[in-house]
C-alpha cells in the first residue's frame, strides 16, 4: 500500500532583499526503485517521484530530476536569493502522472 504523498516545506517567511535563504523540502513517498523483488521473486514495478520543480511567482528557479537511487521520503534542499515578495510553488511529479504541490509565501523587505 502506497502512503499518501504529503509534502512539507521549511523556509523563512520573511527575508531582506538580496538575502540567501535555504529551502528544505520533504515528501512522503516509497520511491519504489524497480529493482526489488517480492517474496514470490517477481520484480516490484518502479514508482518514484521523477522530478521536483521550484518556481517563484511562476518562474522556475530550481529543478531536480530524481532517479531510483533517491531514498524513500525524499528530502531536497537548495538556496534562493530573495529579491521581491511573492509565492513559491513546489511541484513533485510522480511516475504515475500525479503531481503533489505545496505553496509558500515569502515577504521581502
Amino acid at each position, binding site marked *: 500500500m502506497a502512503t499518501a504523498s504529503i509534502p512539507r516545506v*521549511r523556509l523563512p517567511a520573511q527575508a531582506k532583499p538580496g538575502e540567501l535563504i535555504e529551502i*528544505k523540502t*520533504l515528501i512522503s513517498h516509497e520511491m519504489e526503485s524497480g529493482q526489488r523483488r517480492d517474496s514470490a521473486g517477481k520484480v516490484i514495478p518502479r514508482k518514484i517521484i521523477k522530478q521536483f520543480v521550484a518556481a517563484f511567482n511562476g518562474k522556475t528557479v530550481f529543478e531536480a530530476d530524481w532517479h531510483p537511487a533517491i531514498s524513500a521520503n525524499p*528530502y531536497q*534542499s537548495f538556496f534562493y536569493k530573495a529579491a521581491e515578495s511573492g509565492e513559491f510553488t513546489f511541484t513533485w511529479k510522480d511516475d504515475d502522472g500525479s503531481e503533489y504541490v505545496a505553496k509558500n509565501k515569502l515577504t521581502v523587505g
Partner: protein
Amino acid sequence: MISRREFLQATAAASALTVGGGVGQLGRVAAQQRLTQADITRFDPLGTVTLLYVTDIHAQLMPLHFREPSINLGVGEARGVPPHISDAEFRKYFKLATGSAEAFALTSDDFVALARNYGRMGGMDRVATLIGAVRAERGDDKVLLLDGGDNWQGSWTSLQTRAQDMVEVMSALRLDAMVGHWEFTYGAERVKEIADKAPFAFLAQNVRDNEWQEPVFEARKMFERGGAKIAVIGQALPRTAIANPRWMFPKWEFGIREEDLQKQVDESRAAGAAVVVLLSHNGFDVDRKLARRVKGLDVILTAHTHDAMPGLIRVGDTVLVASGSHGKFVSRLDIEVKDKKVAGVRFKLMPVFSDAIAPDPAMKALVERVRAPFAKDLARPIGKTDSLLYRRGNFNGTFDDVICHAMLAERDAEISLSPGFRWGATLLPGDAITWEDVTNATAITYPNCYRSQMTGAQLKEILEDVADNIFHPDPYFQGGGDMVRVGGMGYALDISKSVGSRVSGMVHLKSGKPIEAAKSYTVAGWASVNENTQGPPIWDVLAAHLAKAGAIRIEPNNSVKVTGA
C-alpha cells in the same frame, strides 16, 4: 611530534626515579619507585587556566587492573608513531624506566608481577581526590573539568541504573562538559533526558536529526576560567550509528562534519574565545588528521581509542591529549593566555595509583551508596582464573578467548565471534571471577548471544569488513575498536592489503579443514547491531561456562597470523 620541552615535562616524574634493573630486580625497583600522592599531583603551574580531563571511564567506579595493549598497530601515516607503539618501544619513546610505576601504568609486558607490586589503578574516589587537590591548589575559578565520553557504560551498576550511577558521580565531581559514544546505547530518549537535566553540558556539534538536518545537542559552550574565555566544542563518535545499534537512536545521524566544526571554531573566536578546545570522541588517528585540516583549534582532548600518553602530541598549533581509559589517569593541562591567545601549555598525565592516593570521603560514600543495591550480586563468585585475563590488543585478548570458548560450548557452535571492544577490566592469575568481573566485560544494552548459520563466504566478508574498519590507511574511513575475536577458527591477515584481500587461510581449528566459501557453519556471537537479535544475554552464557569450567587456563592463542605490519 613531541617537543623536547614537553618531553621533559612529561617524563619529569619518571626521570626523577631510578632507572631500574629490569624485571629480575623488581622488588628493589618497586620499592624505590613507589609513587606518593604528592609525586602524582606535583606540578609547576602555568598561566591562569587548568583543564582537567578524564575519558573512557566505562562506568568503572572502583579501582581495577587494566592492561594496556601489547599490539596496537597503526597504518598509513600512523604506522610506528605514538600511540601506535607498545611496550619497550613505548618506554623508549617516552623515556620510562622498565619496571617503573609509569611503565606498569602505560605498557603491558611483565604485567602480572608489576600489578602485584603497584596495585590497582583508578576508582572514582581517588579520581575525586586528585581533582580536589588541583582545584584547591589553583582555585575553582581557574579549573575546567571535562569528560571525553564512554563514561556511562561498562558496568552492571550503570546498566541496571541506565547510567544514573555515573551521572550522580560526575555531577558530584562538578563536571563541566562531556561528549558521547556508548552513552547513545541507552537510547535517544534516555540520553536526551540526562542531557536536559544534568548540571553538566552534553555537547555534540556533529549529531543531526535525519529529517530536517537540525542539531540535536548544544554544539559548544563558552566557559570563563582564570579571566579567559574558553570555548569547548563537543564531538560525538562520528561512527556511532555504524558501530552501535542505529535502531536505538533512529532519528539521529552523526559523521565527522569538518566544515560545521570549522564554523564552530570561527564562531567561538568571534565570540571572544581565547582558548578553543575540541572535546572529541573521534579517536586519536582521526583527531590527528582533523588537526591538520580544521584551523584554529588550540587543544584536542582525544578519546575513544583508549590511548594513554605521558606527553602531548603537537600538530601545527594544536596539542593533542590522550588520557587513557577506565579511570587510570587524570590529565592536567595548564594554559597561559596572553593577548587573548594561548601563549604556552604544560601537561601532566597523572596516574591514579589507588594505593598511593587517599580516597575522597564524600565520593567514597557516594560510590558505596550507588553500588549498595547491587553489592551482593556484584560480589557473587562465578568462577576462578589461573591465567591473566585481559582484553585490549588488536587481535585477541585472553578474556575474549574465554568468552569465545563459552559461546562455542554453551551455544553448541563451530565458530564464535566476539566484538573487539577495548573496554573491560583485567584479572590476575589466582583471582576469583565474580559477577562484577563477568559484567565488566559484557554489560551492554544489546547483549543477546545469537546462534545461527553462516557460510564461509559470509564469515570472510565479516572479517574483511571489520579489518577495514581498523586498518583502512585513511583514519576517516576507520571505525575504531579492535579486530573481531574469533573462536574455533584461525585465519591470516595482511594488514597492508585493501578491503576484500586482507583475510586468507581461514581454517576450522577443530577439524583442521579449510573453511569453504559455500559451506554453512554454526556460528555464535553477541553484540549484533541488528534489532531483535535472539538469544540469551552474553553474561549468562559466560557465567554458565565459568561455573562448569573450573579454574580458567588460557593457552597462547596463535590462530591469527598477522603480516604486513
